[in-house]
């Protein structure tokens, strides 16, 4: 499904809600789709307030802290035992995570 990058100004349509739900593996009822369209539109309106600010000369920021070049040494630390790794798995088998079949 291909959608325009932005729905017309400040609006989240039902089609976009369904698209995002699919990408997020969420199953929504028709009622929920309508409700999220209204609620997300309200959120977008709120965020759009920021557009009113004059940001000339302000660099885009993806990280709040002025930190660079954080590295780790390439040294092995012990891994979890198999049982611990699988301890939160809803289902397991033969030491593996068991999931619905992937073709």
């Amino acid at each position, binding site marked *: 499904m291909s959608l325009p990058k932005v729905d017309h100004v400040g609006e989240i349509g039902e089609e976009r809600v369904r698209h995002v739900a699919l990408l997020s*593996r969420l199953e929504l009822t028709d009622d929920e789709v309508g409700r999220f369209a209204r609620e997300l539109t309200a959120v977008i309106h709120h965020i759009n307030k920021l557009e009113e600010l004059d940001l000339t000369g302000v660099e885009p920021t993806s990280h709040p802290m002025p930190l660079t070049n954080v*590295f780790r040494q390439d040294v092995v*630390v012990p*891994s979890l035992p198999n049982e611990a790794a699988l301890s939160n798995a809803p289902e397991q088998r033969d030491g*593996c995570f068991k*999931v619905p*079949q992937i073709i």
Partner: protein
Amino acid sequence: MEFEPVIGFEVHAELKTNTKVWCGCPTTFGAPVNTQTCPVCLGQPGALPVLNGRAFEISLGVATALNCEIPRETDFDRKNYYYPDLPKNYQISQQFRPLGRGGWLDIDLGAEGTRRIGIDNIHLEEDAGKNIHPEGATHVDYSLIDLNRAGTPLLEIVSTPDIRTKAEAEAYMKGMKSLLEYLDASDCKMEEGRLRFELNISLRPKGSSTLGQKVEIKNLNSISVVLKCIDHEIERQTDILEEGGEVEGESRLWDEAKLVTRTMRKKETSFDYRYFPDPDLVTIVVTEEQKKRIAEELPELPLAKRARFAEQYGIPEYDAGVLTANLQMADYFEAAVRAHDNPKSVSNWMMTEMIRRLNEAGEDAGAADFAVRPEALAELVRMIDDDSITGKIAKKVYPLMVETGRMPSVIVEEEGLKPIDDSAIEPVVRKVLDENPKMVAEIQDGKMKAIGGLMGQVMRATGGKANPQTVQTLIKKLCGVE
């Protein structure tokens, strides 16, 4: 209408580090399932990734060797999608500011020289886990996931679509593999999935400069499979285009059992990855001094080594190319020559006896694991050079060296292959001459070609253990033509 293929590659190389890219779990191949994981690579909430400095350093080396521009700042982004082998539900990759852009690889096309293939970008990311599909049972409705591989550093090298022929595709893949081995960046074992090629291929009318609809093909685990796949796709897409149809933009999988590609997913339903900068990782600043140091520390690369081999050892350009196409092979050659200084003969033995056997052993077979060690080959060549054995005996000894891994001197001793003493050769020559008066007469008439026939008989009679030079001298002397 005649079509030409337009081919590009995405190379995925698992880097040769001790640990994963974001955590300290080991990356050993073949460990018991799910025993190389921790909260970070399991995608547990709250676990934080920290970049493996060695993985980044190796990546910069590859980018430098591929002539890429390395930006001052590079960072990591999240690529969001759901798949069971990706526990975080996003892959950490580099979408907006990859660590290398705009380089090239010169590929070796033999007699046609070299051709420059563009590199669009190089970025560092993480490998996913492994999906295991239970075999045998007919009504299986589940898959199993092993996350040992999840988080292994993966370098993706994206070429520009510059490749036009199958020969170029082969040279590109071999050249890339060779380079990664030279840089010690990756094990490059394709059977283990340590090095993977993803093929992008489209067709266009020959001479046209527009690009056709491309198809990408995954699941290609050897160079020969990629080449088969190129043939198949050219045929498939030609059929579609000739019937007036349109090639669909999609991902296809190679089916090795049927030797065809089949649809994996259509582009129209493909994922919208919603990339955004990963807030868990910080920007990496690469200084000019660091770039300079990395460039200075690069090892000798394949094309440079090839030129040096031809020059320094006086071997043919072609042989130098074969011996340097692979670092293990090149190191093997130099180790043997260090042990016995006869590069031409060492090269000949490698080019014939050794390469044939390695090829038979498969694409991943390397000189480093070959049963005949460089010192053993050097000893064999030395024994020929100082007449301890004949060339003919050496040909018998070599297969035994391959079989047993023993030194040639030991084999010659144990198998009784020592050459016969020169004094013992004369009676044999006399006997052969007595039995062949006609040939003796020919030789005395000046028809020297007959000497070859007599030599053959003497060699047979001595089981190849007579020194050919001695035999020839004796024949001439006893025929009175010396």
